[in-house]
């Protein structure tokens, strides 16, 4: 009996601890915002990229499934970026193309082209929290980082794999986000995010995202060649490996509209 009582007391104590709010002051919020702005700032002017990516999904049983895709991205300096994703495998969805416009102040827009019925379909926009292609990445994890999407708080300094990093937390502004907050480890020298910890709506740790193998392009832009998303609750994971990344190819606005979807190869 005493064991049981101890148990319930322990449970109570844990609940009480979890419900203590993190107190943020003005200074730490300002510092958080500064870091976020710096992160965005170092990544301006890249114009466009074309990447070929392999996505590997893994479930708790250890089964794996892979998807191949090409992603064309266009920088939109005044708004969120535009991205066109073309799926090359598995065979049954090969040729399917996905177009997304990320917006700073309104809901994102998304279309999909299905080669089978040869039709373009708009996808509902309130699903930004939903999984992208059955993976552990949500749509909102795949779209471009924009400063106004979050409010910030600076937590402290740490070492991450030998490098000095800032630890900040960002809370999504949009009520349709699947997260209550994200904790980021951003290195001080290049303002590259190294790790992100996602918290679900009830405030529990949900996923951990690590960026690996950063490479410098055009002497200016750092891009991770590998990123790894691990779901801490379900033990499922998704790995993204970039095989090829080109900057400054001949892409323009007209390659990113719903008509261009049909032409996408």
């Amino acid at each position, binding site marked *: *009996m005493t*064991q*049981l009582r101890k*148990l*319930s007391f*322990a*449970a109570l104590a*844990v*609940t009480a601890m979890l419900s203590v709010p993190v107190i943020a002051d003005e200074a730490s919020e300002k510092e958080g915002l500064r870091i976020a702005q710096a992160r965005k700032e170092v990544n301006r002017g890249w114009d466009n990229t074309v990447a070929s990516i392999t996505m590997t*999904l*893994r*479930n*708790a*049983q250890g*089964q*794996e*499934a892979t998807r191949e895709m090409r992603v064309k991205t266009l920088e939109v300096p005044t708004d969120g970026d535009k991205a066109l994703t073309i799926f090359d495998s*598995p*065979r*049954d*969805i090969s040729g*399917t193309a*996905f177009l997304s416009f990320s917006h700073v102040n309104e809901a994102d827009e*998304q*279309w*999909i082209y*299905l*080669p*089978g*019925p040869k*039709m*373009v*379909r*708009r*996808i*509902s926009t*309130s*699903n930004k*929290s*939903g*999984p*992208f*292609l*059955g993976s552990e990445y*949500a749509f909102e994890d795949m779209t471009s980082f924009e400063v106004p999407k979050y409010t910030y708080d600076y937590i402290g300094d740490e070492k991450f794999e030998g490098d000095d990093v800032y630890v900040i937390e960002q809370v999504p502004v949009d009520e*349709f986000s*699947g997260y209550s907050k994200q904790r980021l480890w951003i290195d001080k020298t290049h303002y590259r995010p190294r790790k992100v910890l996602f918290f*679900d*709506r*009830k405030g*529990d740790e949900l996923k951990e995202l690590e960026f690996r193998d950063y490479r410098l392009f055009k002497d200016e832009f750092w891009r991770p060649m590998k990123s790894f998303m691990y779901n801490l*609750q*379900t033990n499922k994971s998704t790995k993204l490996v970039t095989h090829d990344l080109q900057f400054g190819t001949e892409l323009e606005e007209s390659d990113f509209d719903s008509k261009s979807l049909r032409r996408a190869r």
Partner: protein
Amino acid sequence: MQNLPAWARWCMEKPKTVVVLFLLACIVTGFGTTNLYFRGDYKVFFEENDPQKLAYEEMQNVFSKSENVTFLILPKSENVYQPETFELLYKLTKDAWHIPLSIRVESLANYQYTYADDEGLVVEDLIKKGQYDKAHIDYVRKSIEPLKNVRGRLISDNNQMAVINVTIQLPDGDQTPNIMKIGEFSRQLKAKYEAEFPDHEIHLSGIVSMNDAFALTAMDDASTLIPLMFVIIAVMIALLTRSKAASAVVFAIVGGTIIMTMGIGGWYGVFLSPSTVNVPTMVTTLAVADCLHIIVTYRQKLQKGLAKEQALAESFVINLKAILLTSITTAVGFLMLNFAEVPILSHLGNLTAIGVVLACILSLTVLPAMLMLLPVPKSIVVDENNEKVDKLGHWVMNHHRRILPYSAIILTVSVLFCFNNRLNDVAVEYFDMSSPFRQSVEIQKKYMGGMSNIDFAVYTDEVYGINDPAAMIEVDALVKWLRSQPEVKHVLSFADIIKRLNMNMHGDDPDYYKLPESKELAAQYLLIYEMSLPYGLDLNNQIDLDKSAVRVIAVLENLGSDEFTEFETRTKDWFDKLAPHLRLEAASPALMFAHIGARNMESMVWGSLAALVVISLLITLALRSWRLGLVSLIANLMPAGVGFGIWGMMSGEINMALSVELSMTMGIIVDDSVHFLLKYQAARKDNMSVKDSVNYAFHTVGRAMITTTVVLAAGFSVLMLSDFRLNSDMGLMTTIIFIAALLIDLLFLPSFLMWLDKDKKSKATEAI
């Protein structure tokens, strides 16, 4: 004191040392209790490598988890199509995401309803914030009319109940603290919404709620039954010995036995479970029986005017053999629970066996020492009961010719009724009707038809194999077949989704409510649908990672275990004939219980046989007579026969706790018959006649037999008050068997001896 073994003499000569040693032993072993922890989840009923459990766990890993908490929402108005109910559904669905470890919440409110509009496929929540008006209610009502994935799952067919289903992801390891946290949180939500929406009843069901109920009833048992049993036993001892000092001594022995037993269990690493929380109750009962034998005889000897030491020594000598023998047989009986397939029943057996041995040791060492330290009771009540026992003996003697045929008839009838019993392990029915969880289950049964599900997984073993029209047709055929079975109440099938998507992609044309023609189309429709689903509502609960397998979830009536496993086999056979190239697996907690019940019974048959053989050999060895050994075997088997016969008349449902009953009770009921036979044999050796020997046996042990049976029956009947049927059924059955054993030993056994031995004697006289 000459007959005493040296150790016993030492105990009586150095009582203070013995008591100090006793206290030390209690302290040392008692520290082990700090290692004890409680596990209330249903997995305690299964071995690590239980095949059904492994299949279930694999399925949970391939697809997503299916352990859940279910909110049943029952408006007082005629149906759920009311503004308040809609508001409740919307709000509670949102709040349910805050239940600890929840990963998915499904209800009418956030059902992902699909339809076509000019530019695309719309996938959206059925009830959004503020959409509680009549127009929207009518829209929802019309929209879900054709949806088989909604009707019978998220809303009852008669529209009177709505369901919010919350999927929980429990981490591995000790789940009980998490389960209790989830249970507590869910009950708070329920209370909050019942207060806010007074015209609604909310009930909690689902597997996690069941686990929570396991933990709660066990706590309940521990906090109510154990104290109650102590009260009952204190009253019994006080009544039977009429001495506070005697009660105190017995309590010291009982307390020591419990502390040491649980402490040793703790050192050994045993955890507490819904079964083992009742070990103290059982150990107490058995320890009291040992103590009473010694105390009652001691009192009788004092009454006859013997001095304290002399009386004690004589009581010791008289009872030594019987206490040793019955303790060993009882321990053997409990140890045979190791044959059980259910780990917590083995724990129960081992812990109780340890307790029995400890009780035996303590009552033969510490008890005499303590009695030595106590003064002789001043007034010894003159025993008028013994006369009644003697009278009973005489009555039996005079009527033994009639008792025998009646016994034979009762026995035959009982054995016939035994065949009424059938195996039935339905986990939800382990809870008494008074438990809130069971009430929820009954409500769910009333409105939804049942809550036992079987998950069927169809493996194509081919990437994107489920999009293949050939495979999809077969899965759809399986779903249709399942829906046509009378015991099936609902089937959740991905084929319904893909058919509807096909219709949506063709401008909602009902003619296209069918499977798409090609694999590519199916894959692409599915892709666009999946890309439209919000957080937590993905299809992974029905489709695996590489789209090679699909899970179909069938909800069945709460069937008995036999029907349940039969249904599994029937479905598998049917599907094997239809689609031999596809692999069909079935798994679910309900299926696990259905299988474990049958396997447990099978192995307990061997356990009981082993107990029977070992115990009979021990008795035969103790009595040094094959003949009397056989007599005792008959006398010891009959009570179980009568017990299961009565059970067959009363209920006829055997669960895993009752399957261990035979080997468990046999060791204990041996007590009465062995005492009786030992005395009878002693008298016969003194050349007394059969009649005088029976009378002597009645006189010397009749009272002790009645006393111990009353104590044992009282102790075990306390378990009957448990809300947990594995415990209450065990208590009831054990009590029935104890009373049957006493009647058999007092009525049938003497009559049988007179018939048996008279025959022999007359033959012997003829030979002269």
